């Protein structure tokens, strides 16, 4: 039997290590009739939040309704079950009877299985007529609205000093002999996590009647290493092998890890070693490119070797001191340049659709020329024609020409372009819709893109091709092969599905 269940506290006074939180919780329950707020218990895993909630319910003699991550927690379920439980009295005592609704892992209500659940809980805590206890690891992973509607009690990590006596108690009850040092190192290993400590103790004691310190040390569990600690290891002192092996414990993919290393390594490296390190990072990047192009993830190992062992090997000697490492600036740069990139992509897409080329061609071969030709709107007529042809707004014109988007110059070009488009549309409509009054209206919207309808399939294909080239750092020409592939797929599709035409 699981010792964490067997020795789960049945009353609050048995809850260990979080006296302050425990007293706050007791006070919350005692005064619930006055404030009628829900409470959020938050803290690291294994510090006793759920145990405290159940012990409290037991102390107060409140029946419990519990929801945890293994239940479906969609909006409907929460409204029906938790909602009724929180708004109704009890079967034994009517409206004055208390019942507590315990929502475990309340910071983890998302994904398809829990659609709308988070919002349903927020509105429920506001109108609940029964005490509700929400339990979360990350207080700030819950919405602001939910946090503000509830009282909150923080459960701190359980100190080693408090863990050891609990382990000693359990050993005595189980009739197991122990070395004090053994219990101390179990407590040490599980810094703050009481449940983890008890689980480790049970694993160690399995089939034995005595626990020694040697047993404990050999049975240490895998742990994840924080990325900042890892950066310290790889950049400051580790040899190639150590740097590589330590990276196995870091919870980052190579795509992210390379950014971390690339951005922080130059803070310590200089001169020759910096050049060597960049050489390895470039190798790693090339392998990552191959992974993306081929989807063969076994290449990750070569990327990993290069970015960890390579960077460590490039270093001359060891680095000392403390360096302020930070998250990759690449990410924040992506965020900052989002607006510009969106504009660029919009223009490229318009060009691609109109001209029947791929987006990357539009971006690399067409846009630079346009940019020169319409520089600062000097060639006004051409700029108007461009804006009309590609349906560009002021911000896009400003992006291509380099003129300010709020200037009169650009604004007047936008107006002229709109006029020009109308004229063109009317011209086109002459033949088809002669004499029909609504014709210009229709053409206003459909005219230019209507022109290109037959191209749209091609554009889509070209777009995929474009993004392939963009992500391939090796310069291998995947664009064509990708296109070829999709073409063959098309024919393959044709073979499988008989068309009506086949029978006529």
């Amino acid at each position, binding site marked *: 039997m699981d010792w964490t269940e067997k020795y789960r506290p049945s009353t609050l006074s048995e809850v260990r290590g979080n006296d302050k939180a425990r007293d706050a919780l007791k006070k919350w329950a005692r005064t619930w009739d006055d404030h009628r707020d829900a409470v959020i218990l938050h803290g690291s895993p294994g510090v006793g939040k759920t145990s405290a909630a159940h012990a409290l319910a037991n102390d107060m003699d409140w*029946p419990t*309704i519990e929801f945890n991550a293994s239940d479906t927690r969609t909006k409907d379920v929460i409204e*029906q*079950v*938790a*909602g*009724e*439980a929180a*708004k*109704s*009295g*009890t*079967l*034994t005592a*009517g*409206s*004055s*009877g208390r*019942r507590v609704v315990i929502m475990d892992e309340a910071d983890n209500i998302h994904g398809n299985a829990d659609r709308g659940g988070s919002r349903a809980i927020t509105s429920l805590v506001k*109108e609940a*007529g*029964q005490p509700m206890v929400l339990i979360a690891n990350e207080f700030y992973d819950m919405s602001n609205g939910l946090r503000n509607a509830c009282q909150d009690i923080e459960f701190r990590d359980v100190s080693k000093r408090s863990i050891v006596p609990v382990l000693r108690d359990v050993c005595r009850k189980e009739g197991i002999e122990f070395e004090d040092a053994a219990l101390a190192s179990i407590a040490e290993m599980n810094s703050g996590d009481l449940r983890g400590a008890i689980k480790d103790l049970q694993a160690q004691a399995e089939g034995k009647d005595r626990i020694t310190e040697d047993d404990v040390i050999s049975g240490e569990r895998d742990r994840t290493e924080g990325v900042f600690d890892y950066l310290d290891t790889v950049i400051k002192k580790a040899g190639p092998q150590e740097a590589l092996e330590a990276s196995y414990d870091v919870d980052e993919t190579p795509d992210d890890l390379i950014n971390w290393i690339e951005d922080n390594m130059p803070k310590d490296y200089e001169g020759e070693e910096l050049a060597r390190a960049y050489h390895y990072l470039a190798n790693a990047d090339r392998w990552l490119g191959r992974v993306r192009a081929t989807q063969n993830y076994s290449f990750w190992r070569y990327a990993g070797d290069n970015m960890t062992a390579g960077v460590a090997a490039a270093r001359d000697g060891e680095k000392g001191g403390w360096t302020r490492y930070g998250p990759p600036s690449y990410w924040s740069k992506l965020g900052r340049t989002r607006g510009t990139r969106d504009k660029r992509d919009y223009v490229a897409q318009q060009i691609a659709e109109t001209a029947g080329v791929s987006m990357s061609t539009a971006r690399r071969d067409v846009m630079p020329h346009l940019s020169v030709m319409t520089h600062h709107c000097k060639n006004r007529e051409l700029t108007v024609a461009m804006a009309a042809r590609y349906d560009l707004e002021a911000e896009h014109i400003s992006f291509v020409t380099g003129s300010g988007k709020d200037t009169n110059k650009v604004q007047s070009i936008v107006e002229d372009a709109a006029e020009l488009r109308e004229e063109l549309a009317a011209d086109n409509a002459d033949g088809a819709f002669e004499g029909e009054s609504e014709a210009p209206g229709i053409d206003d919207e459909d005219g230019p893109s209507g022109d290109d309808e037959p191209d749209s399939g091609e554009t889509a294909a070209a777009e995929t091709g474009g993004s392939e080239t963009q992500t391939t750092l090796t310069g291998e020409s995947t664009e064509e092969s990708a296109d070829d592939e999709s073409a063959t797929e098309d024919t393959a599709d044709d073979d499988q599905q008989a068309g009506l035409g086949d029978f006529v």
Partner: protein
Amino acid sequence: MFNAIVSANTLQATLDSVGVLVDECKIHMEEDGLEIRAVDPANVGMVDLSLSAEAFESYEADGGLIGVNLVRLQDIAGMADSDQLVHLELDEETRKLHISIDGLEYTLALIDPESIREEPDLPDLDLPANIVIEGRDIDRAVTAADMVSDHIELGVDDAEEVFYVKAEGDTDDVHLELDTDDLIDLVVGAASSLFSLDYLKDMNKAIPADAEVRMELGEEFPVKMHFDIADGEGAVTFMLAPRIQSN
């Protein structure tokens, strides 16, 4: 051992009474009949049902307990016409229930009773007001109230000697009063409580229109509704906890 033959009508009425609250339940197969007690996941609604051996065409049991998936069982029972007979037999070896309806054989896998929510104790309440009312009047009240609100107030006015139903929506209200002439019987007492319509609607589905329902009410206390099924050979009690009046 369990071996019984029962009319589809009776079986369906039995299963429906429980099925409106829970998806799975424990069935006690006592020597003198079946007993089922279940409470819904929110612990707000409860059903207590007994079906005596007399309700069956033939009945043999020796006090076993099984857990069933009610949704499945209801589907199977629904395959039978109301006047057909259903043969139920428990295979102790495989822990499966064999159900046969006019040549149609269905083997239902049972659920471990341990895994089903614990059966509640039947709370012993002393409720002051007693109303005996026809099933169709409950249906009228619930249907009308459902148009305007998600909860309903049931109460007794001792001075006027009437049983009343009130539902207040955001814009519209529904009010229904039944006096001693409209009711089969009325014992007045201080009673008024608010209830969730979702539950009452479900319970109402299981109450036959021509059933005589004995309702017990109190002041902000649960309501109990007793009625018979299977020509008086089965008895059902629904119990529903009150909504907390928000102030």
